[in-house]
């Protein structure tokens, strides 16, 4: 079926509008990060700063330990992503390949667990971690992030495993490959994009997470980036807008870089198995 020229133009206009909608807050953030306080107070703001300045970045770094906080965030997010993927991958494989009642119940529980609000679990979780001696430690935070990311990671990976035809594994078995060899040489390469996408999801969830980090980490040395960013906000929502925008811009960069590097793989992974040959 061929799309008419008008239809094609309409599609591109819609796509452009969507891109502008998505990009607007980020572009505004960048613009704000490079503006002086005087320019921020203008009645008619401009996209391009008249007199671009790095003062907001300097002030942000002077006032708050952004590098240390970014290091903590990176540790927590990487740890959570790695562990979540390590746990979720074999579990997802079992749930996808062996459709038992237990697997169905587990899938149902995964969906239900997503409905629990944060505030419902935070106090019991706090007490449990306290008794394990994991309050105010990044290890405790990573544990929470893993548990928090696991249901959705599992759900995502089950879909990816199902997209890998079981016939391929059977063919490998017929050719004499053992169970482990089949998993390593046949299934794992096909699952790689899905594993990367799932890891990325866990990484970004942990990187942006605020509330658990706020409650579980007590000392400034342990605080993560989202918690430190709130230190630019005062009573009644008054914010130190320039430094806040500068710090928030820097905080979004890792996610963007990770996305840029692996987006091709994710797209590939998402298309895997989309069409039956």
């Amino acid at each position, binding site marked *: 079926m061929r799309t008419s020229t008008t239809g094609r133009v309409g599609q591109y206009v819609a796509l452009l509008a969507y891109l502008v909608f998505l990009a607007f807050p980020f572009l505004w953030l960048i613009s704000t990060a490079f503006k002086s306080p005087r320019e921020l107070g203008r009645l008619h703001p401009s996209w391009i700063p008249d007199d671009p300045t790095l003062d907001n970045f300097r002030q942000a770094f002077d006032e708050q330990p952004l590098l240390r906080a970014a290091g903590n965030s990176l540790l927590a997010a990487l740890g959570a992503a790695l562990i979540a993927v390590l746990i979720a991958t074999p579990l997802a494989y079992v749930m996808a390949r062996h459709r038992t009642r237990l697997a169905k119940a587990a899938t149902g529980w995964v969906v239900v667990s997503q409905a629990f609000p944060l505030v419902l679990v*935070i106090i019991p979780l706090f*007490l449990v971690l306290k*008794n394990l001696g994991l309050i105010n430690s990044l290890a405790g935070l990573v544990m929470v992030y893993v548990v928090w990311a696991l249901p959705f990671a599992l759900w995502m990976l089950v879909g990816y495993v199902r997209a890998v035809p079981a016939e391929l594994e059977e063919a490998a078995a017929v050719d004499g490959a053992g169970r482990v060899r089949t998993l390593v040489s046949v299934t794992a390469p096909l699952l790689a994009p899905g594993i990367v996408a799932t890891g990325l999801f866990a990484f970004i969830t942990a990187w942006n997470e605020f*509330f658990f980090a706020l*409650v579980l980490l007590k000392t400034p040395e342990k605080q993560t980036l989202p918690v430190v960013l709130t230190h630019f906000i005062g009573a009644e929502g*008054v914010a130190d807008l320039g430094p806040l925008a500068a710090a928030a811009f820097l905080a979004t960069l890792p996610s963007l870089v990770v996305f840029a590097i692996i987006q091709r793989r994710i797209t590939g992974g998402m298309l895997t198995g989309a069409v039956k040959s």
Partner: protein
Amino acid sequence: MLLLAGCTSGGGSSADGRITLRFQSLAWQEESVEANKELVREWNARHPDVKVEYVQGSWDSIHDQLLTSFEGGEAPDIIHDASDDLADFAYGGYLADLTDLLPERLKSDIPERSWETATFGDGIYGVPFLQEPRVLIANAKWLKESGVRIPTPEHPWSWEEFRKITEQLSGDGKYGVAWPLKEPVSATLNLSLSAGGQLFHRGADGKVTVRFEEADETVPRTIHDQANTDHSASPTTLGSGGSDTLPGFFGGKYAMVPLGFSYRQQIVQQAPKGFQWQVLPAPAGADGLTQGVSPQTLSVAEDSPHKKEAAEFIDFLLQPQNMVRLALGDWMLPTGTEALKAPALRTVKDGWATGTALATHLTSAPAQSVRGYPEWKDKVATPAFQEYYSGAIGLGELRKRLEDDGNLVLARYQR
């Protein structure tokens, strides 16, 4: 069981007997954070056996963070907060009663009306130390050229005069005033004290009821009429925060903006070069310049094993000269009478003198100790005031909602 096991202190003692206290500060502006950290350094230098650890908190999430820390027995020893956030923590037994822990010097330095803001039942659960009145930040050149009388704390505008003047200043797409009423309840109630508005009335049985009487009408009616009848108040800022009104103020769209005293810092930073501004007192009513405030407070956690030392640190932090440093850092007024005498707080520059002159008129914000107030505010009063100010409902409907719906909410908390 877990809860019991969790009930340990935030700070602690080391094997050599040294005490460590955790002080969670909500200072956030550069000068304010520096002032707090400097004072902590000075304390630590003078008290090698009682080390204070500075921990930065955030206004944005303080209530939830404290609640969780209290439940888990991990709260900081010394807690910076605001008096309107203390009621639940005080009644919940999470904060120490400071009545017998504070020295007489501090008790007598801070006036009774300020202590009332942090007194719940028979106990004092926080030391009120910084406060800010709502003032009118005005475009000085605009006012001067218009020839209107410039009010002073000694001769303020009445609410009626204020309405007339804003009407006089308006026209051609410009407004005499821009009310930032994103949080309409606290602004309205605090300013209504000037007209004698009480709204919350405690009966002989100790129960509180809402009665929207004639004195309570003055401020809301003025704002409503400015926005909807005179068109002397910008209708677009009624749902805005204070910072959102500043570009319009600097751009010559609004002659005046009612804001908290500490907004001066933003104005100094953001005002275009040559922009002339001044601080004016908020209008006065039957009760003069009286205004409700919810001061910033310092409290001690009930679970802290070192309450005495924590109170000593608070006493150090709030020595008159230190209170002045904290006030200057936050662009607010100290509650201490000695600190208020400091020349740095009485200078005309940046409107300090006007604010300091208002200090004696500041009293406890209405209802901050009324149980159920947060729900009344969020579910009943905020939408009711927003609709009234936008012209969607009249005064009768506003009264009906505040009283009928409001008293149903309060009754649930007072059974």
